[in-house]
């Protein structure tokens, strides 16, 4: 019997969650995540997923409920997007600070104001400092696979840190593709339920969220930081083991595509990586030495991989659906910071694109490649940060 089905990103993610068998799900619906939580409610209703499903009144409550359940040692799941993620933000810190291995899906969506339900990555990127591990996926299959891997990473005793799986709103959540479903038995083997080392225990009662004043607080922060740094190795191993069991692996923290001899490399994340891959192939056929570095994980940040892969390039373009107003895209800052480890730093340029759901086409990406190649050869004056397809003339130009 074929275990391949046609599913949207939201549906694929819900199927992945069903395979991971969380014992408690607490969620509040928000576009474009809604289909995921609807499907999960269906699975609980039809009995194919044995889980406590809590319909809560807000995202703040959704994460709070997950925190309570996870503290009791239950495997938990929630999903949100945009405004919902921001409303949850206080609790994101509580979850990571309490070292609870909650897994969450975030459907990347623009943030108000102005209001928009369409996709960009400003929601999740604004939450980089919440102490969560952050994955970004390229397609529905990767969404399904990564939500399963997320539990493996989060619940690792060395890690014990919550994980956020990000998929682009609409472009991934609402488009359909053929996906392959892993076997339940193998998934159970890959992520068996485990006793959380810090779970609440009636025989050894504990007080949660104790106060830690100046003499002790910093140690807890160091502990959190160390755990996420250690997660890098766990993520790579989890991906390799997944490959052995299910035949698909993604390269760990990053995927380097045709970068070996590339002179110009685009760094990007999420669904744009898929489009960039096609442009790289097109340009390679025409003889251009170009490549793609896909960031799969932003926390822990893959600085070693970035240095190793980009260190050989002449010029780098960071293409992202984000802008930190008054500076540049957050991912661009991260990349530049990593590259300071090099003596010979390649030229780097930032391309802010797709804000509020504006499409990023093959043509746009080709233009980014053309621009960075032209900048590095001095053919045209370079711009450090530019908005792709602004849609109108720049002030005074």
């Amino acid at each position, binding site marked *: 019997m074929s275990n391949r089905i046609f599913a949207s990103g939201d549906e694929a993610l819900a199927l992945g969650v069903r395979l991971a068998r969380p014992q408690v799900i607490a969620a509040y619906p928000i576009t474009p995540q809604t289909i995921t939580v609807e499907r999960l409610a269906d699975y609980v209703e039809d009995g194919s997923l044995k889980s406590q499903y809590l319909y809560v009144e807000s995202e703040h409550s959704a994460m709070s409920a997950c925190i309570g359940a996870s503290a009791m040692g239950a495997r938990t799941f929630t999903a949100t997007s945009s405004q919902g993620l921001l409303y949850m933000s206080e609790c994101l810190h509580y979850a990571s600070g309490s070292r609870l291995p909650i897994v969450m899906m975030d459907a990347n969506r623009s943030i108000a104001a102005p209001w928009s339900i369409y996709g960009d990555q400003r929601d999740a990127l604004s939450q980089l400092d919440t102490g969560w591990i952050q994955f970004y996926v390229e397609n529905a299959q990767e969404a399904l696979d990564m939500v399963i891997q997320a539990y493996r990473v989060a619940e690792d005793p060395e890690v014990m840190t919550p994980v956020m799986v990000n998929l682009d709103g609409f472009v991934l959540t609402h488009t359909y593709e053929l996906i392959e479903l892993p076997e339940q038995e193998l998934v159970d083997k890959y992520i068996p339920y485990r006793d959380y080392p*810090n779970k*609440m225990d009636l025989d050894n009662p504990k007080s*949660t969220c104790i106060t830690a004043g100046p003499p002790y607080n910093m140690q807890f922060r160091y502990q959190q930081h160390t755990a996420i740094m250690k997660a890098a190795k766990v993520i790579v191993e989890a991906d390799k083991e997944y490959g052995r069991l299910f035949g698909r692996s993604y390269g760990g923290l990053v995927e380097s595509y045709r970068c070996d001899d590339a002179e110009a490399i685009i760094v990007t994340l999420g669904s744009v990586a898929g489009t960039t891959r096609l442009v790289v192939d097109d340009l390679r056929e025409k003889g251009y030495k170009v490549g793609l570095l896909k960031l799969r994980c932003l926390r822990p940040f893959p600085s070693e991989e970035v240095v190793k892969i980009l260190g050989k390039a002449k010029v780098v373009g960071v293409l992202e659906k984000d802008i930190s107003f008054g500076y540049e895209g957050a991912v661009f800052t991260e990349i530049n910071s990593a590259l300071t480890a090099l003596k010979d730093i390649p030229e780097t340029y930032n391309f802010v694109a797709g804000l509020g759901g504006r499409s990023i086409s093959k043509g746009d990406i080709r233009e980014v490649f053309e621009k960075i190649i032209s900048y590095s050869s001095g053919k045209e004056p370079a711009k450090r940060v530019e908005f792709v397809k602004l849609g109108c003339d720049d002030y005074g130009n």
Partner: protein
Amino acid sequence: MERPKVKAFTPPKKMEEYPLGPAYTAGNLVDVSSGMRTFRPVIDTEKCVKCMRCFLVCPDGVIDKSGEVLEIDYDFCKGCGVCAKECKIKAISMRKEGEV
């Protein structure tokens, strides 16, 4: 009046000695409250039937049941009033501090 026994606290020296996240065996305050109460609960021991409801709900565990009658440890009571609110027979009243 009985107070919980004070345990010696040895500050952790190594990271390994810290709990995994801030969940740890509950302790109790050892420093006397600095007089934050506006109202203090007073138990009418004539009325009280020692049902222990107040003992169970007191967030600070300041109701002592070791003696003949229930007693409140005013050194640690913060005057929240949960005991008075929960007492089914109204044996606990809240009296303004400074007034008799």
